[in-house]
């Protein structure tokens, strides 16, 4: 039963949307790997589903993470998402109150005021509730207009540069609720069936004729229809994809190295909110076209250039700030893997490499892997060895004379198959040694050992963690000095592996650790990163200078770090002492 033709744009738009979504989701889910599908089936009726529902509610509707970032920004997102959701829910309740049944045509709750002019029990309350919700959404729309004029009020320095398609979809979204207000007010002016808001606005609509009223409802319906059709092709696809993503994440599906269906779901979950733009340090060097939001857009449209793909430090600041929780670093790496898969090396020479025989009769307890970067900073290597000797640890120095790279730099460059060769080679050596602990002094190595080596029972420790253990076991004792220390979190150790506390605890035993404005999760990158292949040295120095400004604000005596690459990068830019944790420990050892 079609009462009026104006419902057609809305209805057709909604049907189009559902058909496209059905096809897209069907394809995505059917292309997941068999194991991932099994994961979904197994966890469908478990607590994980409840957790996913709760997260969908908290993030998809309430936008909790946005609130944490900035109150007003959070309110804007919440009023639009949660407000609209409530409008739909209460629209149906309103129909239920009137007819006593939920079964009705889908357009009735949307255009309720147009179709129903009679009063029914509870009508006043429902009209006022609906008006309140409309006001709630409209406040968000007004804030959204304002955000485009002045985003600084929302705690955002730079907003996303939108493409015409997105602008068109956004314009239709911006029209929906004001048009609804006008349409309902016009009806209220004619039939007096509005609530506190629409009846008030109706005072200005006393002149309307039924033709104008129907025209306004047409406009409302058309804006809804346009928005629905635009949705799958614009950034608003994120609204529904994000929920799918949250569920799949809760079901234990993880991003693979190769770009697959789950990666695509993540790409489509990006709302282009632009939170990743402000946190990106590339702006300091005037590079503003390769932030994650733009890369994901390029990935979606298949027009990512090599220049953009490789010009990123992979520091992970955007990933930890992303309110949707997209694995931005690994997504980027998966694109690099795809781009460079034709020319991977097989490192045939590793087979002919003379293996150093294990001389020690008894198995070492610890195997120490210094890595390329530690060999570049002999001070760190020497200090680690000194601490191990002092503590009387039974250790073996794996790459003392000759050693292969850990594979992480290759991984960062997307040379996945090549990295696997090095991983196989090193893994065999580590397991052969019979050690129970693998000690590393470079966070870059640490990351790949933890993520990709599958070392089984062998525990992997960064030297800051291991030395703290030695101190706690009383194997080494430290003397506290009155020096003030600022600790710089290396990207791969902090955001990469979540090690924030042990280095600080250890340092606090040797001096006073000062905290800085941006530390731990929000720590800045030193700019030396191996993640970036094409960033020029001049740009690196500009970024480094800004990082140092933050770190040295309180004039510490020592700038401490736990990464040889960070140390090497900082040393060339400051007058004060830059030391690795290992070196500080050696100085403080009694």
């Amino acid at each position, binding site marked *: 039963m079609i009462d009026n033709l104006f419902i057609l744009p809305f209805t057709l738009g909604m049907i189009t949307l559902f058909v496209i979504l059905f096809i897209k989701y069907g394809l995505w889910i059917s292309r997941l790997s068999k194991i991932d599908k099994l994961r979904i089936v197994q966890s469908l009726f478990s607590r994980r589903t409840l957790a996913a529902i709760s997260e969908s509610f908290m993030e998809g509707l309430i936008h909790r993470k946005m609130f944490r970032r900035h109150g007003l920004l959070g309110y804007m997102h919440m009023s639009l998402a949660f407000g609209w959701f409530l409008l739909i829910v209460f629209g149906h309740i309103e129909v239920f109150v009137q007819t006593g049944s939920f079964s009705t045509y889908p357009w009735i709750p949307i255009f309720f005021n147009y179709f129903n002019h009679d009063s029914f029990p509870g009508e006043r309350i429902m009209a006022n509730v609906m008006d309140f919700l409309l006001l709630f959404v409209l406040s968000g729309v007004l804030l959204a207009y304002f955000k485009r004029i002045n985003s600084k009020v929302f705690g955002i320095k730079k907003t996303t540069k939108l493409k015409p398609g997105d602008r068109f979809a956004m314009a239709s979204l911006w029209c929906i609720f004001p048009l609804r207000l006008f349409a309902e007010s016009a009806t209220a002016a004619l039939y007096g069936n509005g609530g506190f808001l629409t009846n008030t606005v109706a005072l200005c609509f006393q002149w309307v004729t039924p033709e104008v009223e129907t025209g306004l409802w047409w406009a409302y319906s058309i804006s809804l229809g346009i928005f629905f059709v635009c949705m799958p092709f614009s950034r608003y696809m994120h609204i529904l994809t994000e929920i799918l993503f949250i569920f799949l994440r809760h079901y234990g599906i993880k991003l693979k190295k190769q770009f697959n269906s789950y990666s695509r779901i993540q790409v489509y979950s990006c709302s282009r909110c632009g939170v990743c733009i402000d946190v990106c340090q590339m702006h300091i060097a005037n590079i503003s076209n390769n932030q994650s939001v733009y890369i994901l857009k390029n990935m979606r449209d298949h027009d990512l250039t*090599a220049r953009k793909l*490789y010009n990123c430090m992979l520091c992970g600041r955007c990933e930890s700030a992303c309110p949707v929780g997209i694995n931005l670093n690994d997504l980027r790496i998966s694109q690099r893997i795809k781009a460079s898969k034709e020319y991977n090396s097989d490192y*045939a*020479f590793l087979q002919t490499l003379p293996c150093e025989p294990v001389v020690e009769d008894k198995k070492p307890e610890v195997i120490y892997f210094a890595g*390329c*970067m530690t060999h570049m900073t002999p001070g760190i290597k020497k200090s680690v060895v000194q601490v191990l000797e002092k503590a009387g640890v039974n250790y073996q120095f794996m790459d003392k004379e000759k050693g292969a*790279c850990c594979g992480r*730099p290759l991984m960062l460059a997307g*040379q996945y198959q090549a990295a696997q060769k090095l991983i196989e080679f090193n893994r065999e050596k580590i397991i052969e040694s019979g050690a129970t602990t693998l000690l590393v002094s470079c966070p870059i190595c640490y990351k790949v050992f933890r993520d990709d080596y599958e070392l089984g029972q062998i525990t992997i420790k960064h030297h800051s963690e291991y030395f703290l253990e030695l101190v706690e076991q009383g194997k080494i004792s430290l003397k506290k000095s009155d020096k003030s220390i600022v600790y710089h979190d290396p990207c791969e150790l902090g955001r990469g592996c979540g090690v924030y506390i042990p280095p600080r605890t250890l340092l606090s035993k040797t001096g006073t650790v000062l905290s800085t404005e941006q530390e731990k999760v929000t720590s800045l990158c030193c700019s030396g990163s191996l993640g970036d*292949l094409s960033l020029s040295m001049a740009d690196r120095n500009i970024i480094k200078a800004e990082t140092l400004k933050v770190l040295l604000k309180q004039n510490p005596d020592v700038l401490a770090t736990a990464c040889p690459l960070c140390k090497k990068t900082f040393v060339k830019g400051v007058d004060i002492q830059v030391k690795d944790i290992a070196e500080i420990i050696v100085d403080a050892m009694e």
Partner: protein
Amino acid sequence: MRNFGFSTTKSRTIDYEKIDNRLIRYVLENEPTFNACLSCGSCTAICSAGNLTSFNIRRLSLQIRLGELEHAHEELDKCMLCGKCLLECPRGINTRNVIMLMKKGLYLIESESKEKNDR
């Protein structure tokens, strides 16, 4: 030609007009900092792969500049991309990108000539 029992070595004269500059051109287009290389050999001195094999970035870069691509593929496959050279380079050259571009450029050249042969 009559065989006199001895041979002559082929001329090693390099004609700059005729050298195969496809690879070096590709690298320089995409990583202009490589222009600044003065072949000091710092990269080669600290190279991790050079410690394990005969890999020599300095020699490789000179050869590629002269268009001698014969051993380039085999040599490039020894680099582990660890980035020590990047830290050592006094000219601030993005050495890792240079290597990646050489690999890609060589792959493009090789697949191009393969296509020609197939035809």
